[in-house]
């Protein structure tokens, strides 16, 4: 867990009060749940909090917005301490998961709401709101009530409303979750553009790895209220450190002790890799690297050979994902034809092989 240590060391240097951007250690205790997340980001950064349901992502977001009080830690934005500042006085904009556009106000008045609260006159606030709506390509929907907007339009109005208060921290809670698949694709690329233009810190919460990887420069993976890994999307995709992340990016992941090219897995069997390493390591390989055989293969070069039992089958596009138990728990992808030829069914016994060249080992 060196990543966490690194984070702690990073934030330790955040004592410089003039430091721009976000510097936070969020401690929230509620009943038996404990959130302890350190977050730092420079202006212009887009950070994604990624994690399973109940990991504490939304709690972290609410704490940043001031909607949930901190039990401890600190929260600094552009050098100013925000802990104890009520939400209405924080330079923080929030795009809520279901947008929470005020149903009785038009799109224009929804966007003008923030500037009005900041003391702008009605006409000025409306002019500013019209500008934001135009920027979002929604000029012709300015007079529409939220219930007459499509999901994608509502999302953009919510984004305009949050940006119109010129926040120094923009928070987005599952910004694309409420959209259907087709709109999502379109809105995702638009959101990416708007986030790229945004000059301050943006933090978004999502459980969708694709959203996180497309939208964010940096991922912070949270499980059980703690940061389990953080880094660039490509780094995390290549070097997952928990089963959750491995599943998200579609990899089989094992932890073990390596001695040269052989890794003795914590799960039991040994595994041969191409990278020579010593000490605690992770080994990962994609389900497509697994080959299944009916009989014990003879004359194969694969040294990674395990006797397994099919525990479940699932269709993934034109592929079949087989969940295997037995000597080693793993996921294997194969074509429908291959699955039929092998006569796969839950409970069937198979042999699984993985070429060493298709595995990837890295220090834990």
């Amino acid at each position: 867990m060196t990543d966490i240590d690194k984070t702690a060391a990073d934030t330790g240097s955040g004592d410089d009060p003039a430091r721009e951007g976000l510097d936070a250690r969020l401690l929230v205790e509620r009943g038996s749940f404990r959130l302890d997340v350190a977050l730092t980001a420079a202006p212009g950064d887009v950070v994604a909090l990624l994690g399973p349901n109940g990991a504490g992502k939304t709690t972290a977001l609410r704490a940043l917005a001031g909607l949930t009080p901190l039990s401890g830690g600190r929260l600094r934005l552009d050098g100013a301490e925000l802990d104890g500042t009520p939400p209405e006085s924080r330079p923080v904009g929030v795009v809520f998961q279901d947008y929470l556009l005020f149903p009785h106000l038009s799109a224009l008045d929804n966007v003008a709401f923030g500037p009005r609260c900041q003391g702008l006159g009605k006409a000025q606030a409306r002019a500013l709101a019209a500008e934001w709506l135009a920027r979002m390509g929604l000029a012709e929907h300015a007079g529409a009530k939220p219930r007459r907007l499509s999901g994608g339009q509502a999302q953009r109005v919510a984004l305009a409303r949050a940006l119109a208060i010129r926040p120094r921290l923009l928070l987005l809670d599952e910004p694309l979750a409420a959209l259907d698949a087709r709109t999502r694709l379109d809105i995702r690329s638009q959101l990416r553009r708007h986030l790229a233009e945004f000059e301050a810190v943006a933090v978004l919460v999502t459980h969708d790895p694709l959203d996180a990887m497309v939208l964010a420069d940096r991922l912070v993976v949270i499980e059980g209220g703690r940061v389990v890994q953080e880094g660039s999307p490509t780094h995390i995709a290549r070097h997952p450190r928990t089963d959750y992340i491995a599943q998200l990016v579609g990899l089989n992941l094992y932890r073990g002790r390596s001695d040269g090219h052989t890794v003795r897995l914590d799960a039991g069997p040994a595994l041969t890799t191409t990278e020579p390493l010593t000490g605690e390591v992770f080994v990962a390989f994609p389900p497509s690297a697994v080959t299944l055989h009916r009989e014990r293969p003879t004359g194969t070069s694969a040294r990674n050979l395990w006797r397994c039992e099919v525990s479940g089958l699932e269709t993934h596009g034109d592929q079949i994902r087989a969940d295997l138990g037995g000597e080693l728990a793993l996921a294997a992808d194969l074509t429908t034809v291959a699955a039929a030829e092998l006569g796969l069914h839950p409970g069937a016994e198979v042999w699984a092989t993985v070429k060493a060249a298709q595995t990837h080992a890295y220090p834990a």
Partner: protein
Amino acid sequence: MTSSYDTSGAAADTLKGGPRRRRVRTGVRGAPLPLLVPALAGLVFLLLPLVALLVRAPWSTMPEQLTSTEVWQALRLSLLCATAATAVSLVLGVPLAWLLARTDFPGRGLVRALVTLPLVLPPVVGGVALLMALGRNGVVGQWLDSWFGITLPFTTAGVVVAEAFVAMPFLVISVEGTLRAADPRYEEAATTLGASRFTAFRRVTLPLIAPGVAAGSVLAWARALGEFGATITFAGNFPGRTQTMPLAVYLALQNDPEAAIALSLVLLAVSIAVLAGLRDRWMTAAS
């Protein structure tokens, strides 16, 4: 009671914009007898007195009855006091409903129960209680009298106080129900946009719960209009000053039954007008 809950429910549906539930209906012929017979008996029971009122109405002398000064005086006073009592209920009741629905404090459940007490309390008891509190020698009334020279009992203001005491709980319950059904996260969204909690209430919550507030106001107004027991106990029965329609009806019944019927018909007409005003909320919302 039930009607106030109905309102909040209907308001809740409106707020959520949820789909209206479809109900399975059959013809009256399909209704089982053990339900149909008492249902029809109940219907007759409720309608018969109203029909009797119309049957016995002195239609020939009606114009004179209704144009008498006393009738107009009483009607004017009734409408005025009921409206004022509703206004008092709104100003005090909506914030109270907000407090009950949106904040948490020790004894909140007890406070809520106490607020609804006037709903079940016999109005005469309410009148006596008001005298003990605000009467010339009352717990607070004696100070009002000696410090500010304000006397409430047996004045028009006293009528408003008595009516508001009885009517406000209807409004509080109705508005509280609507508030509970409204999503509090809209208020959170407003605060993240820089609105103080009061601004969030005024510009976001209040418009959202407006249908519930309107329904609660009509309920409170109707209750205030019909108020008898607390009014006569606390404010007395002085024509032109504290004699509202219900008091006038009761008094007339002893001296001039025909006048009582005429006055009753006026109140019936007002009630029907209120019902017609609420038609969209109750009669169609339930169908």
